[in-house]
């Protein structure tokens, strides 16, 4: 932890008239993977998800780590980084409203890439156990959610594979 207190970065601790749950609900509705879910059920998703904050330069998770969450960026920017034996590849820069890391919601596998905060970052996250509980509770939604999520993951993987041979983003 390199930086010290930043009075503008008061993430998580809020008081005011709109509840965090309502705000989370708004964010989830903007994400394609979840936007098809009826609002009263999405409310439970919003209830179970949790905000996580990360300072500029710090990692949300590292490559190879067993992390069990999916992330949606609430504010700030993050970059996905893949480490190879001899070099590092920057995969994608993510911004507000982007959803990533969803594979961890489906199975207990090691991270294929790391995620680093480019600015002070606030994310909305859902952990695997909650996600599985939700799938069990609303089975009629499972296919819809899984479909959207797998599409998203497949697109990421495609990108990852094409990156490997694309020298433009490779740093020495």
């Amino acid at each position: 932890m390199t930086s010290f207190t930043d009075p503008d970065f008061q993430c998580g601790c809020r008081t005011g008239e709109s509840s965090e749950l309502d705000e989370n609900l708004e964010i989830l509705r903007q994400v394609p993977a979840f936007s098809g879910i009826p609002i009263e059920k999405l409310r439970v998703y919003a209830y179970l998800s949790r905000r996580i904050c990360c300072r500029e330069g710090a990692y949300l998770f590292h490559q190879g780590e067993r992390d069990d969450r999916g992330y949606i960026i609430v504010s700030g920017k993050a970059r996905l980084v893949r480490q190879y034996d001899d070099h590092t590849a920057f995969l994608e820069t993510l911004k507000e409203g982007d959803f990533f890391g969803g594979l961890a919601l489906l199975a207990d596998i090691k991270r294929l890439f790391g995620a680093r905060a480019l600015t002070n970052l606030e994310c909305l996250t859902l952990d695997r156990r909650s996600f599985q509980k939700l799938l069990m509770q609303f089975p009629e939604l499972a296919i819809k959610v899984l479909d959207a999520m797998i599409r998203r993951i497949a697109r990421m993987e495609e990108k990852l594979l094409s990156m490997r041979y694309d020298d433009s983003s490779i740093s020495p």
Partner: protein
Amino acid sequence: MITQKPLFSWIFRRYAGLQLLLLAIVLVMVFARVFPLEMQKRIVNVAIRFKDYHSLYLYCALYLGAVVLAGSLKYLINVLQHYIGHKILLEIRSRLYDHILHIPLPFFRRTPSGMVISSITSELSTIGDFLGGALAVPVVNLLTLIAFGGYMIHLNPLLALLSLAIYPVEIAIIPYLQNRFNRLNRERIDTTRTMSNHIGEVVGGMQEVHGNGSYTIENRKFARFARELFRLRYRMSLIKFGIKFVNNFFQSLGPFILFLVGGYLTIQGSFDLGALVAFLSAYEKLYDPWKELMDYYQALQDARVRYTRVMEYFHVEAEAREDRPDRSPARLRGDLEVSGLVYTVDKNVRLLDQVSLDLPSGGQLALVGFSGSGKSTLAMVLGRIYNYDAGQVLWDGRELKRMSKVDLVHNIGFVPQHPFIFNGTLMENLLYGCEALDTVALKETAWDGGGTAARENAPQSSRVPDRETVLNMILKVGLFDDVLRLGLNSTLSARRHPELLPRLVRIRQMFYHQWGEELEDLVEFFHSDRYLHYTDLGCNLTFGNANRHIYEPPHIAEQPLFQEFLTENGLMTPLVDFGKNLAQRTVTLLEDLRDDPFFFQKSPIPPEELDLYRELVEWTERNPLSPLGPVRRNRLLRLSLRFVAGEHKMVALPSELEKKILEARPLFREKMKRKDPEGFTFYRPTEYIGNETILDNILFGRLKLNRPGAVEKVQDLVVSLLGREDIMDEVMEIGLEFQVGSSGDRLSGGQKQKTALARALLKNPSILILDEATAGLDNASQARIGNLLENEYRGKCTLISVAHRLDTVRHFDAIAAMKAGKIMEMGSYEELLERKGIFYDLVHGS
């Protein structure tokens, strides 16, 4: 052996002095009982007849004296009787328990624990009542009977013989009934046992019952026993009351004979009316001792049946006791020679068959094989947990079968796959083996409170290691972090560690000084002018910890003092409204999810209260304008005090309310100072908070939940500070005082195994037998233990390890691959791989 002692030998051989005293008192009492009869006669015949006031007073005084004496003696007899009886019961129980502890293990494989429990507790308990009176009761009552009978014969021999003639008839009938009663009673004991075994089993397997929803099946099984028990009890009461009936019937026949014969004689003039009346009253006095004799007879039969039933069950040869407890135990080198070893169960199933192997002192042998191959059994036989049937097991050339238990436990450390951890502290569990070493040779059983004598006999050099050795061992087996964490998460008892409080407060200040600013992101410190989002609303108001039960949540919500404070500061209405909002939002959200407690982790309303608050919410919706009334208002107040802003996200705390709470905080402190200065310990940077954990006290705040890795990072910093401030040992010690719970349930599987390993190693054994003792550990911990055994114990301690994971046995001197109770091949890891036999198959998983 204790199980062969007849019931009465306990009575004849114990407390002779007390029993003689009892007998003497009995004799005096019998006299004191008959004496009033004579006084009665003299009052009528002498005092009244001759109008002699002086003798009237004298006889009445004597009468009164005799009655008082008889009463007090009876009391004394009862007390003595029970004292003797229960003292004997104490001895029977303790010696039986001691005997059971020494019965070899296979007995317990077929004996459910419910059986042992019911035998020692309920079955034996009524015997105590009986034992005390076993001699005194029959003597008292026989003598009383004879005394009254004699007095009657003295009055009129013919009438006396006639009225006593009915007793022999009773004596002929009652034993017949009693025999049938005994038979039923034996059946009842057996049924009760099976039932308690069954209940014990079901409670142990409750997981399966709930998992399978097999309530009906279990109810049915139980009902079978319960109905059988009812049937037996019912038939027993038929006989019991039958005996009573016979008794009463014959007793009432007596006066009938007296009236018929006595009346006839009186009409004829050969017997006078006064004598007849006196006779009748004497006859009535016979009833009590006779009834007591009958009761005694029944109690005797019952006690006999219970006693023999219990003793028969445990009539199993116990292990031989050490005959020379004062000699010092032999130290073995750990040289093992096994030849032609056979271990059989159920008469002809050979679990071990012709096993032979040699292992030099300090060598390391791994036993491997598919499950059911007999590797665990072999380990247990080598540690004499089970006794072998044929062949030889020689440790240092001495036959294992004939070695004394004292030598064995001093030399062998045994760690089973599922070690048992006893209820108590972690430290007690670690030292269990060593403390046993100090006492294993002692013959004493504790029933007579002979502990002091035993301690004097104990060997001079205790085997219990000092604190440093224990801490060192904890470090070696990898339990250090666990213990430290347990210590940090314990609440400190201020009474037991007063010296630690100021030191911890100093560490708190250093912690804040050093990392406070940096950790502002991860920890929400207790700043007195900030609202705490990870602490509940109630604490945000009081900003302290309750020292009295009445101020603790949820009781504080009902406290008149607290409510008065809320009203004074305009907080009552906003808090109740907030509670209403919170209840309404939570109920809507979770109403349909109540079946799974998982969804209630971030809810201020636990699942069991959901209905309560749902009704409340519905009521407020139906009657929006009616006043709530105190019950509903308190319920909502309780809910809003429970609200944690960072956790319960269904509503936001209105900024108006937050401001009011912060303003009220110092006012509450002032009010308490005036009304009840001892009621709260307020959060102050300089004050230790008694009912918070050590970690929270050092943080003086709470971990924020929204930062990845916060817990680990903060704990690491705290630990580094503890090390620097030299207070680590104290925290470790508090961790060692952790109560592990029944069967060690509050420890993880890995922690239990590490504890058991440390427990065995602390004994400093020359032979260590591990039965898959590291199977529950993660790879890193397993490797750590492997290194420890390899580097520190090779050559010093003979190791026999049953291994399931084959990558852990690479370094062993020898590996024995087993199949169907036989050693198929033995050699080093490489040798066995080259041979391409069953070890090769095991490694390559075919």
